[in-house]
């Protein structure tokens, strides 16, 4: 019986042929605060209407009132599963506007932190896809490794989740030996855990049957919807901002771009797994390059831009000039050139862009965040149409929607 002719209602009836199911905004299956009003025919989804904005915090309006360093904490709260990437994307946008060049060691340290953040985000997404199919074990085993990464962040910037890491031109402090020891521990233990996770899921018959075929999208439709990141790569398009518009010395590294074919849930899962392996590869190369620096070069952790880089805390507490510089930089009293710049980085979900219009004042005239989650969530109706409810939920989680990035 085809779903459209299932029920024939008498003339003037007030009943509908579909049931309205309100999924969200607070629902254990939607990993974040966003709503889907689904019209169901039995257990099949006929159409969905998405509502977003439950966690809209007016970042773009806030940014018009905040000097550059005060904007970094709000970028943390975009994609909060991988906040270092947002922070560094923002600092790189400022560096592009101000014409600041970062030394190689800074770039390599930034890459280590960004790839750790990418691994964190992908491991959450993939293990949650597992949870939604009923497999809780993968999630418990992998989440433990986020703890190791949090400890590395803590060594560098003091915070775990919303990191506010880095400065314009580099980092606030050099990575301590503890940070490198923890990094080595992560590099030794995580591949083992990821391999176990893959053994559990990749060729697992139940998982494959649950995820294959669901939420498929063709490359043309994905591009039309403005998808970027792992969701686009699962559909077969190998667009990666790190390769196409290299920033932060990514061109010095060797890594592959995993690409899928059908763009379904299984392909997205596999692409994210592949990206985690590639991120581990990049981190190992970066760590080796950093160990290759000797002498004075090995102590470099920021560019020499006293007009935009906060002075050392020891000086701020003891010297008057350093205190004044600290105050001026935080309050935005140092000169910013007029101009407009668009800079994008490869966030965990795709191309995270910052469009910064400066009028020479203390704060941006306009700052717009190009948020990949917001843009590709439009595709959800097309992906979920005709699926069973449980498969529609798996499609929702495999897209890796982070509410913070959805709403800004």
């Amino acid at each position, binding site marked *: 019986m085809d779903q459209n002719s299932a029920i024939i209602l008498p003339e003037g009836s007030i009943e509908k042929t579909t049931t309205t199911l309100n999924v969200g905004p607070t629902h254990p299956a939607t990993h974040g605060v966003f709503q889907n009003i689904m019209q169901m025919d039995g257990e099949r989804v006929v159409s969905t209407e998405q509502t977003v904005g439950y966690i809209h915090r007016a970042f773009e309006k806030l940014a018009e009132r905040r000097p550059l360093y005060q904007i970094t904490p709000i970028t943390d709260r975009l994609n909060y599963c991988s906040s270092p990437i947002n922070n560094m994307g923002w600092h790189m946008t400022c560096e592009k506007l101000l014409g600041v060049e970062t030394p190689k060691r800074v770039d390599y340290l930034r890459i280590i932190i960004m790839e750790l953040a990418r691994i964190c985000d992908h491991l959450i997404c993939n293990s949650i896809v597992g949870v939604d199919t009923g497999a809780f074990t993968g999630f418990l085993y992998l989440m433990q490794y986020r703890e190791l990464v949090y400890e590395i962040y803590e060594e560098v910037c003091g915070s775990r989740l919303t990191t506010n890491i880095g400065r314009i031109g580099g980092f606030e402090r050099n990575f301590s030996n503890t940070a490198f020891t923890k990094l080595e521990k992560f590099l030794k233990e995580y591949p083992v855990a990821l391999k176990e996770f893959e053994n559990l899921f990749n060729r697992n018959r139940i998982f494959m049957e649950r995820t294959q075929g669901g939420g498929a999208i063709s490359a043309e439709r994905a*591009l039309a919807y403005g998808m970027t990141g792992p969701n686009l790569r699962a559909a077969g398009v190998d667009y990666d901002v790190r390769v196409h518009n290299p920033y932060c010395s990514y061109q010095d590294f060797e890594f592959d771009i995993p690409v899928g074919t059908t763009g379904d849930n299984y392909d997205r899962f596999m692409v994210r797994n592949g990206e985690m392996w590639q991120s581990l590869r990049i981190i190992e190369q970066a760590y080796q390059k950093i160990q290759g620096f000797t002498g004075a070069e090995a102590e470099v952790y920021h560019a020499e831009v006293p007009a935009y880089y906060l002075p050392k805390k020891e000086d701020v507490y003891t010297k008057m000039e350093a205190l004044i510089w600290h105050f001026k930089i935080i309050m935005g009293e140092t000169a910013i050139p007029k101009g407009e710049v*668009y800079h994008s980085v490869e966030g965990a979900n795709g191309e995270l862009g910052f469009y910064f219009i400066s009028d020479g004042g203390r704060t941006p*005239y306009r700052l*717009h965040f*190009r948020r990949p989650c917001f843009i590709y969530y439009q595709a959800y109706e097309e992906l979920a149409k005709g699926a069973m409810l449980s498969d529609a939920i798996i499609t929702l989680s495999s897209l890796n929607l982070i509410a913070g990035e959805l709403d800004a």
Partner: protein
Amino acid sequence: MSLTNDIVLQKLQAAFGDAIVNGGEPYGLLTVEVPKADIINVLRFLFDDETLKFRFMTDLCGVHYPDEAGRELAVVYHLHNLEANVRLRIKVFTSIHEPDVPSATAVFPTANWMERETYDFYGINFVGHPNLKRILNVDEMDYFPLRKEYPLEDQTRTDKDDEMFGRG
């Protein structure tokens, strides 16, 4: 011969003449200004032309310039040719008293939510949009918050008591 900013500008000016105003290449990104009556034709031309192939819309946002009479609201489009790896920025200006701009959803389906967000923040009416309603703010909001005349906080709220925080 690979696509460069000069070729893009030449082809646009050859097809649309004086309608294209060259805004320079700030930080390497070619920026042009187009009148709102021509924007859909320009987007369609950039999409269909076999040399230009700007088939990916990266971003669409609004800007408010209260001091420019007759051109207060701007819509900024960022396009990207993924194969040749060339980006383009197009700006459309409109008066705040007639904030109607043709919708780009017919050329780029991704513009759907981006235009809803721009409408929500600036009140720009995208003519031809399939579902132009607020997306991030509450539906009952009756003003457009990112316009420069509105302060960061809504001064008419009665539910917050800032007395204790020195902001009474």
